[in-house]
């Protein structure tokens, strides 16, 4: 579910088909630099109503890193 949301947002950012993005792809392979990642996360934070802390941001290198991080934050929000 969150994986779909993340892939959709990345495909919006890259203006490409979501089918071209898989969870194991590196952000730099996709041509996403740090500013691109900030922008994508900004949109996802809004959609999911969570905040990714700055100290986690630098370790988000693969699409799935973002998925896992957002799943954790969303789960914490529900259980909290």
């Amino acid at each position, binding site marked *: 579910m969150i994986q779909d949301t993340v892939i959709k947002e990345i495909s919006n950012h890259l203006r490409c088909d979501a089918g071209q993005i898989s969870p194991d792809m590196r952000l730099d392979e996709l041509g996403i630099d740090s*500013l691109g990642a900030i922008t994508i996360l900004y949109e996802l934070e809004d959609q999911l109503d969570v905040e990714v802390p*700055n100290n986690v941001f*630098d370790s988000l290198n693969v699409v799935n890193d973002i998925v896992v991080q957002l799943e954790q934050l969303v789960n914490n929000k529900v259980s909290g």
Partner: protein
Amino acid sequence: MGEVFITGLGSICGLGSTVPDYWAALMAGQSAIRPLTGVDPGVKIRVGVPLDEFQADRYFNVNELPLLDRFSQFAVISAREALADAGLEDNAAIVSEAAAIIGTGCGGKQTDEETYLQLYKQGRSRVYPLTIPKGMPSAAASMVSQHLGIKGPVFSIASACASSAHAVIQGRMMIQSGLVDVALVGGTDAPFTYGLLKAWEALRVVSNDTCRPFSIDRSGMVLGEGAAMLVLESGEHARQRGARTYAELAGCGMSSDAGHITRPDVDGISMAMTRALEDAGLDAAAVQYINAHGTGTVTNDVAETQAVHRVFGPHAQSLMVSSTKSMHGHVLGAASALELVATALAISNGMVPPTANFSGPGEGCDLDYVPGTAREHRIDAALSNAFAFGGLNAVIALKACDS
């Protein structure tokens, strides 16, 4: 090209409201980074170097304040100090012919944001009539001109965090071209507004505890506010009137990365340093000190260290390289002028300001960053680095006057 000297200094920042206070704090290795107070709870940035105790009415009459945004107030205060320090405050003949070139990264944001708050949020339909002349990015330059009687070329320069370095360079070029004998140059910024803080927060480069340039656990930059001004003077003019000189403004190097909007480029910043050395006629080995751009971000500090190695070769290991941003914060459009004041004083006093908060070298950071404690050392030549967002680089080389 003719010689240009620094003959007057002025500054106001979180370390002190005058140059002597600023220098004393730098020599004590005293960081002014502190928790932000009175900031909207929605702002996640927790620390900065604001001028909390600043009272504008100590410096200005009530009838002067309606036209003075906070960034203009700082500019006028430090300009007054610089002219007085040069012994020119009562010399209308010289001052009226001078240039004033003032850098700013943000402009009069306090004025703009107060206006937008009223319009967009409070539903007002009219705004304060002086909003435009008070908030325009060139307002500080105009206010400096008006308050000090400077009637030569006056304008503002914007190149983000290199604005005041570009202003210094522009003033030197005007003197060397023969257009003016004296130029007041520097920069100013007052970025502690709600909108700007939220914008910096979104960029994820601001630390939430402190600024530790070149350190293993560095966590980003810390914002500061204030202004710094320098009086530049042709060699002939300075000698004729017997002016005291802090240092010779011996060379300048500019470059643009033409690349990434925020990530510094080793090629671009190396080129600016090399050009400054060439312009000054300096061998790399003649330099003892670099006042680094040293923001405390992961990317800047590694790129700057790599560039120093590339430009200085084996001599890099003998250089002292410190970031005073660890103490006064990143004052954006005022940063490079504030740091040039520190560099000029390092030369004239034979004392090198330290990098505060240094907690051990980060990966790829292997220079002598003068950690913690100021160091006594004769400085014959020094560089002051400024690398702005947008890839705009400006490096200034100073020489001791007796070298």
